[in-house]
């Protein structure tokens, strides 16, 4: 991770939250691309390969769930870790999301940025282990 900066796509409609996530991830040494809805994030993901995707659950134009499904349909994102942020802690059955739409991890709002960074690191390490 020190050698090659992990490229992370952040899809989040709330600019303030996106900004603080970006700040923390850059601090952790990642390259961050911020998109304010699912559709734009999908377009960005098709143009550039990302090592990890952080997406909000509830976004205009394309929700996080739809983004996940679209990404998993793409060959280059079959195994890419996807972390979902959601404001609907209890309303959604989170344990199901992994199987149905391929979400790797989820964090419910409000979350700790340190926790997010830790999860991202864990995911990147395990995905490296799989690819190697």
């Amino acid at each position: 991770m020190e050698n090659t900066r992990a490229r992370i796509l952040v899809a989040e409609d709330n600019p303030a939250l996106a900004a603080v996530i970006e700040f923390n991830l850059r601090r952790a040494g990642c390259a961050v691309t911020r998109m304010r809805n699912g559709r734009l994030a999908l377009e960005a993901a098709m143009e550039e390969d990302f090592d990890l995707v952080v997406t909000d659950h509830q976004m205009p134009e394309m929700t996080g769930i739809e983004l996940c499904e679209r990404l998993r349909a793409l060959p280059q994102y079959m195994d890419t870790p996807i972390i979902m942020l959601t404001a609907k802690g209890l309303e959604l059955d989170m344990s199901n999301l992994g199987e149905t739409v391929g979400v790797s991890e989820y964090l419910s709002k409000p979350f700790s940025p340190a926790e997010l960074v830790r999860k991202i690191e864990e995911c990147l390490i395990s995905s490296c282990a799989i690819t190697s």
Partner: protein
Amino acid sequence: MDSPSSHIGLPQRITGYFLLFGIAATLWLGLGVYYASCRISRERSESACLRILGHVIRSLNLDYMQHGDAHLQSLVENQCRDYNLAYLAVIGLDGKYLAHSASHRVGTKATEPAGATESWGDVQRVRFVNEDSAILQEYRAPLRAADQNFGTVRLAIIEPNSWHAFWTATHYAPIALIGPFAFLMIGAVVLGKLTRPVEDIDRQLRRVATAPSVAGCELLETEVHGPAAIGWNRLVHSWSKGSGQKDLQERLSESLSSMRVKKLEMVLDGLSDGISTTDQDGSILLANSALAALIPTLGQLANEGNRAEPSTMRKQNGPNGSSKSHRILDALKRGWVVPDSCPLVDPETTERPVVVELEGHFGEDRRILRVTRSPWIEPEHQHSTGHLWTFRDITQQKLAEEMRNQFVNTATHELRTPLANIKAYAETLVLADVPDIEQQKDFLNTISAEATRLARFVDDLLSVSRMEVGSLSLSKQTTNLARLLDEAVKKVRPLMKERKTSFDVFIPEKMPELYLDKDKITTTLVNLLGNAIKYTPQGGHVALRVKVLKEQLEISVEDTGIGISQDEIKHVFDKFFRSKDSRVQEETGSGLGLPLAYEVVRLHGGTITVESVLDKGSTFTVILPLVTA
């Protein structure tokens, strides 16, 4: 009826007593008359005797003066015969009979009978009993001729004997009593006729009296004529009420239940829920008018098969006449979507209650029907003989529920998002090393702004909950309108700049002072202006126009924003309503701002209206009455 006393009817007894007392009275009267006549006849005979005695004395005196005692004997015999005397005798001074109606006694010594003697002057009367046991009255008086006493006259009559008189009276009794008895008999017959209706009624009433309960007695119409009988028959008829002989309880419950049925019909038809009972085949036995409105196809089905209109409650004669095509489910399927998995279709569920919600599309409208079916168990049957169905249109309820769910989602999102930002920024400040003072300030500003947003949302929630229970209250004060508008404009100006929206304000120079809730009206205006900015793309225009009319203040907020579709415009003041438009979804919002604005304006006695064209823009107009304190 079986007791011996009841064998003799009331009329017989009335007639019997009438006769008994009538005869007794007649006999008493007869006895009285007899006794009186006895007394009168005795007194008559006494005076008659004295009169005869006078005649006899005069004629004897006269004869003795003219002829001496030559004709005395013949005169006595004639007189005795003429006056019908027991005997007549003249006794000389020597105490021997000078003359005697019984001629063989002449010359013999006069007998002195022993008996009670009474005397009036020189007239004496002796009552005695002779050898034949007859009571004789002998009257004695002295005879004088030329002032010379020449003897005594004795005449006797047989006193009428009591028994003799009685026996004589009995000869006349039949004639004397036949009249009264005849009248009594006629009276009895008339009485019997008059009381004949009573006999039947009396017998029936006696039966009622001895019966264990009134319910078990049957009352019959009487066949005899007369006003009493007519009255009784009418009474019995009204009790039987044309349905023959029924006991009282049955009749009472019948009349009560017929009233109850009428009331129940009215209640059933007044219900907004559709109600129906069906037999096991689903044929409708009973339906109320609401059902016809909910399932219009029911009427069509009914008409096709000559079935009863469901709009009127009607009882079918039975399941015999029904054909399979009239099942209630068939009717339901003609407008509502009944999936194959629906429990109504499953034959296993017929013995237990089922509740389902069906969706239906009627033209543009999507409606939802809640159907409840429970087995219909009649008391005399152990198992269900049919079903009781209730149908309720829950479209509005569902819409409200959906809106509420949407609100919960929105609210959760609205609460969590600022919280997430606050937490993320605060933790970043604490844990990460943020050397840049400006960045630290920036972070703290974000935290502050998010906290404000959170607080405003909580305020809105509180207002809405107050609005729902109707306790949203105003604290009115005399307010400088210019200052109020200025305050509202100041609050939204930074946003206008941020969104690069041009903002025109048209406020007249002279503004009245108004008596209103300053804070709530300011919030309302900020809300309307905020919406105008939120839903107007960059580079658009927003205008605030204020006009002071004769009695009204008109404030309008115009924008060149995304507008509102005609379908949704009627819902913009509904609580929790948010447009389905993605351009609206993109913006944060609770769906509470406009309903709150509406309520605040309404409480001020004003109105708020909206005009909008999709993709062109919207105009919200608030009209407030010019009220000064």
